[in-house]
């Protein structure tokens, strides 16, 4: 077998070109300045502790379809900020829903601090989330509203739906983990031997930076190196640079996880898989997914490395509803909100699905 050889001249040319691009890139990056995310106009309709509930204003353009009468409340995860749903005008699930005539509310959990370290999973499900549902019911005048849970927020939403099924007309779950013990779930695999009680007792709230480090460690070569080398390809495109910076801002804007809530979520849901096994109890009540009898749309991402598709798909055999739909979005955990394909498909599917069940 012949030894592989590099063309010396080509290599030198590559290096020179890289250096030039790098310098141009630094200049371009310096000119990007401040980027904005989550800019779709909205109004605060309720606030409690760190939580703020927003209602989005209707867009100044005619809707693409007939309005959906029943409002939709979005329950985002406590990991990262909810602005991934509204990253920028042309990459915004929320804007896509508004454009299709959906009345959208969003829970912003804020930045939990030391005062929230003893808040429990039940406080979030039967407390904050339940009160937000009540506020939306009161404002809209509908006895039952639509709820959309995202990732960990989907797990909270499922728990709420199981405990308070009469408050919901439809439930949408997006990249929501249900079965935490699928073989490809690396986060569960790593957490198995971690002393979570000691961790939370020591850190109080779990620092967002710690979670970030954990997520980066899932694919260290790609996420800590290749991503930034790849940035070189976009340096001549100011718009692409801004997109990159928005995503970067979102990724590393990580609130701390409320300590006790995190401990319970990790122990009960992740380590012990109680939601899946029907053994989760909140506030002394069993969270039985068979009580989820309202229509359910489950959206997952085909190449999700954080919530593997199998972890979401498990929902189908657990819920009690007879009206169960799924949609497998191409791409990964984040792509489901911001990729070009997702922008075309996801809001359209959600709006159509809700409209068909708007009664």
């Amino acid at each position, binding site marked *: 077998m012949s030894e592989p050889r590099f063309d010396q001249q080509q290599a030198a040319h*590559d290096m020179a070109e*890289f250096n030039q691009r790098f310098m141009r890139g630094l200049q371009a990056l310096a000119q990007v300045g401040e980027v904005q995310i989550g800019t779709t106009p909205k109004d605060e309709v309720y606030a409690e502790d760190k939580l703020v509930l927003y209602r989005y204003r209707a867009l100044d353009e005619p809707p693409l379809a007939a309005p959906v009468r029943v409002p939709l409340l979005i329950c985002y995860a406590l990991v990262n900020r909810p602005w991934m749903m509204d990253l920028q005008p042309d990459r915004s699930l929320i804007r896509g829903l508004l454009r299709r005539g959906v009345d959208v509310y969003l829970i912003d959990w804020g930045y939990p601090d030391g005062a929230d370290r003893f808040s429990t999973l039940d406080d979030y499900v039967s407390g904050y989330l339940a009160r937000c549902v009540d506020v939306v019911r009161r404002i809209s005048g509908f006895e039952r509203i639509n709820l959309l849970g995202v990732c960990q927020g989907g797990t909270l939403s499922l728990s709420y739906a199981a405990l308070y099924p009469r408050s919901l007309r439809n439930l949408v779950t997006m990249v929501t983990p249900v079965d935490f013990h699928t073989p490809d779930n690396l986060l569960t*695999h790593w957490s198995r*031997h*971690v002393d979570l009680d000691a*961790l939370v007792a*020591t850190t109080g709230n779990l620092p967002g930076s710690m979670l970030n480090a954990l997520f980066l460690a899932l*694919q260290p*070569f790609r996420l800590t*190196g290749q991503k930034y080398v790849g940035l070189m390809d976009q340096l001549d495109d100011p718009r692409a640079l801004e997109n990159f910076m928005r995503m970067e801002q979102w990724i590393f804007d990580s609130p701390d996880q409320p300590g006790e809530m995190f401990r319970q979520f990790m122990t009960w849901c992740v380590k012990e898989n109680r939601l899946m096994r029907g053994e989760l109890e909140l506030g002394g009540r069993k969270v039985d997914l068979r009580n989820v009898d309202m229509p359910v749309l489950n959206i997952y991402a085909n190449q999700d490395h954080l919530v593997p598709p199998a972890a979401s798909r498990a929902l189908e055999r657990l819920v009690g509803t007879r009206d169960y739909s799924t949609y497998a979005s191409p791409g990964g955990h984040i792509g489901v909100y911001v990729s070009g394909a997702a922008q075309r498909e996801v809001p359209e599917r959600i709006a159509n699905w809700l409209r068909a069940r708007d009664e």
Partner: protein
Amino acid sequence: MADAQSIPGEAQWAAWIEQQREALQQPAPDGAAAAGPFKMGEEMLNAWRNAWTVSNALRVGAGQGVADLLARLPPIGPAREQAAAWRELAAIQAECQRLEQELQTVLMGVQRDALELLEQRVRERGAAGQPIASYRELYDLWVDCGEQIYAKLAYSDAYAKLQAQFGNASIQLKARQQQAIEQALKQFDLPTRSELNSVHLQLRQVKQRLAVLEQGAAARPAKPMTRPARSTVRKAPAKRKSR
């Protein structure tokens, strides 16, 4: 006055020493006695050096032994609690360092194996008539190899355990450090995290009790929100019956 030429310089001394060393290394023609005083001196020197080395080792060993013994003794005296806390802190710090080192070694192994896989892939590409054309292509291939090797490690039980052991040890270390800091803060009557936690917990309990009371109040039949002012509810004094 000594002639500069008559004083041996450094080079001359070195040459002389080398000469003596070679002489000492010459085999004795007819027994040790023939080696004369040089041979005897060398043996004495070696014996002395060996004795010193052994005694030094014993001394160091004994010192270490005493240190180990002291480390195992239960702390006593008025500073018993502090001594125990500092000893635990030192022990867990050492354990943390050991585990971190072990983790580093494992991760270095990933880098090494990734490079080996990269070499294999580059050869395969060459053999298939698709040689690497640029540094960027080589870099991307290295990333693919790295992730492939890392994924194999990341999904192994051994790595999950090692990572968790290191994490758990780090948590213990932080807990011990917090204790030490809290101890110091108390000396100055400054608030500690434990006290804050206690306040947060009490606040939470108060909020819960308030919520229960509010629910109970909401469930009861509505009553006037405020009691009318006394002056408005006081009845006019009954007229005395005229006798």
